[in-house]
């Protein structure tokens, strides 16, 4: 084979990034679960023959970053290289060898060119139901959390395993949706594969060895250069959050060395009895994500650019749960890892890390059914509806936090109109929550209000997955805390932040999601920004007076002009 030019490698790297992006887009367009098609809770990547990840789609969420990078070697080991043949499709939802809970299905497809194995495509999607207790925190072990699919062949030489499909269909609440999603995952790998082979033909390649070396060497060098430019040092970070029944302390020590950064979670609380534990792959994903954002944001994810970010955690701590610990809601704790890391990083690299934010996504799932207290109307149905929602992000060293915007997660919310088409759920309110962003020179992002009920004739269970009820986001450099989460029924009945809870016919759940914390002392906030906050109702008059010392005359003036539609 002729020597490949430097320019050709430039082109091929570009091409592979485009290929995985297209793979992810195909998944969005063919998936059935709202979590994938509307919210983008997915990821997609291409690997060399050894199972090293070469490129990962930007579309998707950081929680899958390292987990995806690690997954393919597990598949190669379990299936056995000698059993990998053209036309195969592999599947798993193993929390430890996939992406952290049974609700993520990972599908891997080997890529063959001229009869030889040249690489793999993998993709992951969060599905709405996998049977068991349903998506929630209440299980005592992973066995209760739903159907487990070990790493195995979904299709053998192109032939789909009917037995497996029957078992899956018989064990889940929304079998059509799940089977449809598995097909969608297989389809998206197939699309990636076709494009890869086109590229190999165009550049006359027999293997990916040359281009893989080029990508991995350049990525490793670039990442290590960034790390080497930082001062060596060590610092600890700590954050307490709600947990399930008892508060959880997340603790990390960050060691910045010449060629790597270690995040060591020694000292973190042990396993919880309920399903909020985190397999290490998921902890690694968010630790790594937090550091990459702060240190090397533009370096794409691949085996080499991820390697210098090392993570350690004691076995059976809540951030390194071992089988059979329940892990369904690993995101609730996992999404808090970046704020913990930033608590340490702020001591090493001041004016880089944001203040604490809402952290976890404010997700909930409702299981609707015909009312049981009285005869239900004929049109009443059963339905599972999952929604993704966000609180406010923490204020940045030079910017306000973002209102109702996911951080660190990368998923989107679903349109209310689409959610209400899925099942008989009613979203009565979904709007910003004034006064919830912590005061500061830069204000925390606002959380949001939601009110959730059911259509006439239905009752439901709500699976709550909320944190920051008792532990609101803390400010940095004098910034104030964000508002905590609140949850109750519209008649005042108290509810818990986590767990499955019954809501009778005619009742609504009133939710207030947390705000991000402020950065810097409130006294140094620009008067102009305070006036704009008041005019838009991001803060109330009382908040402006109490936190920023705004005079009554100023308040009246701003509110009067705001009422006339003036722009501030």
């Amino acid at each position, binding site marked *: 084979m002729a020597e490949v030019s430097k*320019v050709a490698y*430039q082109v091929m*790297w*570009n*091409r592979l990034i*485009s290929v995985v992006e297209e793979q992810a*887009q195909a998944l969005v*367009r*063919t*998936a*059935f*679960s*709202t979590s994938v*098609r*509307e919210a*983008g809770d997915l990821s997609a990547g291409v690997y060399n023959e050894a199972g090293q990840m070469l490129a990962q789609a930007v579309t998707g969420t950081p929680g899958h970053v390292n987990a995806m990078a690690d997954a393919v070697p597990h598949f190669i080991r379990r299936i056995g290289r000698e059993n990998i043949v053209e036309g195969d499709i592999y599947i798993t939802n193993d929390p430890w060898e996939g992406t952290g809970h049974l609700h993520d299905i990972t599908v891997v497809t080997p890529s063959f060119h001229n009869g030889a194995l040249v690489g793999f495509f993998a993709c992951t999607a969060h599905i709405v139901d996998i049977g068991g207790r349903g998506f929630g925190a209440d299980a005592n072990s992973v066995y209760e959390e739903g159907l487990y699919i070990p790493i195995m062949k979904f299709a053998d030489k192109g032939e789909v395993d009917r037995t497996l499909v029957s078992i899956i269909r018989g064990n889940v609440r929304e079998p*059509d*949706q799940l*089977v*449809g999603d598995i*097909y969608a995952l297989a389809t998206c790998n197939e*699309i990636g594969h076709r494009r890869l082979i086109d590229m190999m033909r*165009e550049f006359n390649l027999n293997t990916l060895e040359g281009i893989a070396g080029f990508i991995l060497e*350049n990525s490793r*060098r*670039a990442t290590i250069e960034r790390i080497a430019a930082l001062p060596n040092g060590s610092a600890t970070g700590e954050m307490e959050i709600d947990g399930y029944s008892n508060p959880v302390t997340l603790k990390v020590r960050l060691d910045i060395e010449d060629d790597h950064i270690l995040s060591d979670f020694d000292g973190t609380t042990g396993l919880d009895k309920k399903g909020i534990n985190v397999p290490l792959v998921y902890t690694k994903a968010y630790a790594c994500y937090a550091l990459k*954002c702060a240190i090397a944001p*533009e*370096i794409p994810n691949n085996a080499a650019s991820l390697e210098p970010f090392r993570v350690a955690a004691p076995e059976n701590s809540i951030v390194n749960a071992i089988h059979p610990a329940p892990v369904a809601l690993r995101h609730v704790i996992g999404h808090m890892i970046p704020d913990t890391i930033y608590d340490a990083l702020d001591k090493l690299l001041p004016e880089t890390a944001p203040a604490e934010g809402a952290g976890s996504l404010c997700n909930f799932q409702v299981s609707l059914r015909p009312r049981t207290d009285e005869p239900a109307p004929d049109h009443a149905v059963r339905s599972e509806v999952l929604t*993704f929602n*966000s609180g406010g992000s923490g204020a*940045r060293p*030079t910017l306000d936090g*973002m*209102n*109702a*915007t*996911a951080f660190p997660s*990368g*998923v*989107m*919310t679903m*349109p*209310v*109109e*689409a959610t*209400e*088409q899925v099942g008989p759920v009613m979203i*009565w*309110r*979904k*709007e910003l929550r004034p006064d919830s962003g912590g005061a500061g020179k830069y204000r925390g992002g606002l959380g949001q*209000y939601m009110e959730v009920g059911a259509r006439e004739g239905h009752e439901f269970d709500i699976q709550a997955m909320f944190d920051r009820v008792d532990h609101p986001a803390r400010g940095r450099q004098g910034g104030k805390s964000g508002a905590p989460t609140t949850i109750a029924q519209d008649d005042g009945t108290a509810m818990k932040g986590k767990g499955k809870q019954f809501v009778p016919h005619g009742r609504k759940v009133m939710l207030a999601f947390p705000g991000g914390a402020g950065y810097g002392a409130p006294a140094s906030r620009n008067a102009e920004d305070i006036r704009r906050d008041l*005019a*838009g*109702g991001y803060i109330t008059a009382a908040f402006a007076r109490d936190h920023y010392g705004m005079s009554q005359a100023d308040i009246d003036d701003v509110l009067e002009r705001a009422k*006339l*539609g*003036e722009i*501030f």
Partner: protein
Amino acid sequence: MTDAKARLGVDIGGTFTDVVLEHGGDRWSTKVLTTYTAPENAIIEGMHSVCKNAGVAPSVIGQIIHGTTLATNALIERRGAKTALITTRGFRDVIEMRTESRFEQYDLNLKLPDPLLPRNRRYTVTERMEATGKVLMPLDRAEVEALADDLAAAGYESIAVGLLHSYVNDAHERMIRDVLAERLPGVMISLSSEVSPQMREYERFNTTIANAYIKPLIKTYLDRLQDRLKTEGADCPIFLMHSGGGIISLASAAEFPVRLVESGPAGGAVFAADIAARHGLQKVLSFDMGGTTAKICLIKDRTPKTARVFEVARTYRFKKGSGMPISIPVIDMVEIGAGGGSLAHVDVMNQIRVGPESAGSEPGPACYNNGGERPAVTDADLVLGKLDPDNFAGGSITLNAGKSAEALINHLGKTLDMDAMEAAWGVAEVVDENMANAARVHAVENGEDLSEYTMIAFGGAAPLHAARLCEKLGIDRCLVPVGAGVGSAIGFLRAPFSFEANRSVFMKIGSFDPAAVRTLFTEMEAEARGFVRSCDATSDILAEYKVYMRYSGQGWEIPIALSADEAANPDAETYLKLFEADYAKLFGRSVEGMDVEITVWSVNAFTPQEAVDPVAAVKAGAEAEPVARRALFDPGLGSMTDAAVALRAGFEPGTCIAGPAVITEDETTVILPSSRTLVAQADGCLDMRTNEENARG
């Protein structure tokens, strides 16, 4: 006397206003600088100029077809009217909360774009529809009246109304309009159920607000334009190009100005579609590359591909999600930040990156010798021998190749251990690859195989890059038309009168209701035909029918075209079969045992396109006389070649030339690599084919 056949096409672009007059089978065109404060001035100047050249008075013009970036620019520059939103209580912040996600995941200092309306201009009323259209909370007229008084006190000029699920039931939106019309006479009103009756509140509300926001501006402009044209002697009907590639009346455009967004590029696609028709081409990829962006569009059977949603005013490096979504029928184009002025740099991974940052015209690429120090695509093209330093833009600028080489070495070569030539090769390959990737993704998303396509290349920079793009995409044939500099304005004159009516109505194949479908299609067809009839009182009107289908539970639909008969006599089985076939074509396999549903229905009414004069293919005749030879880099070969230089002006039908060659003209340069041969056609198009294709004849 007006002459119905004398038509004026006018395209207001960011820099130039292009004016084209067609009269008695001839065409005159001109470019005048856009006059931002009063855009009609440039039109008047251009009209007089082309009329003078044609030796006719403006009174001869029978129709004016107009497209403009004014709507797009007003949205980008936030120069709209004082506008309020009225929405359902509990949903005040839909346009601010967007998708609750970050379009760039690794930027800790990300700034989300501000919503079009600040929070204190967003108002709510107590009301609620169920997803089925059933009224859960009736709207109280008194509440709307009280709100109307507040709005009057605040002095709003325009009001957008967007209520939840109004795409199914618009009763409450209509009631609000009635009250506002009564209490706030003269204030403009836009209802979401009329502007964009589609599910997904963020897109629908944003589209409606965008419409309301630019409505006063566009309406006064159009009124002014009509008056001025009349005073200047052109007292004829004026029509507007819309984003979907058709023409609507001035009145419709004033009512739904958001439909004018991206009308200029739409004209370019129609221009390419017309050339495709003349040359009898069924599958065409139009490629329009200018100074800052490139646009790519698929055209099948003379019809550019359309979509139902797109994004304008991107705030962050053209990044998807950083702009605002507009859901209206639109020609589906991929636009990327790749043009002659796009700047190159090396990133931390030692990868060459090109664009979207552009050198613009000030200081311009390094070779303009105007203070630009960073290498642009034009610098790479110059070093590779694609441009003649002494004959650029008709000789108006002398390019400095030394400056290009210096910029390439300083910014790329030193880091990557490349000389100027290799760095230039890298820049050209990366920008061509970026465009090729965009085209590939677009084709695959539409289930198309580009190797069956012919490219039509226009815009100043396209002919320099078209052949390489063809090589990368496996496209055998490319046409480079004449008049490409005013392509959009010519396209306006080729566009049909058209209007697309859409409805979001959910129907499962399992509970298909033929009677309801017939009623739906009849209603939509009447609406669409009505719009077209208001433009043309006599012409035949044709209609196209589409349904958007998916497996129940999926979120994204695929469009399924129906024949008139299939729309008139709806049948579940037929619709299902059509869907399964298209689905399998797009995604490789259909899904077993799933219910299928229809979500959106559409009828597009349009006037038939005039039969075009086919351009008979001309075989290769005399070889072009080279005026010089120069060194030209051939990226396909990875080496320098000795290329003939010929002048396009001297080409007759049949003139042919084999690559490597460079064909120069005032507006652009056509690059012909070693893999291709070119034959001039009767209409002046240069027909570029692979040597194998040509050998086959």
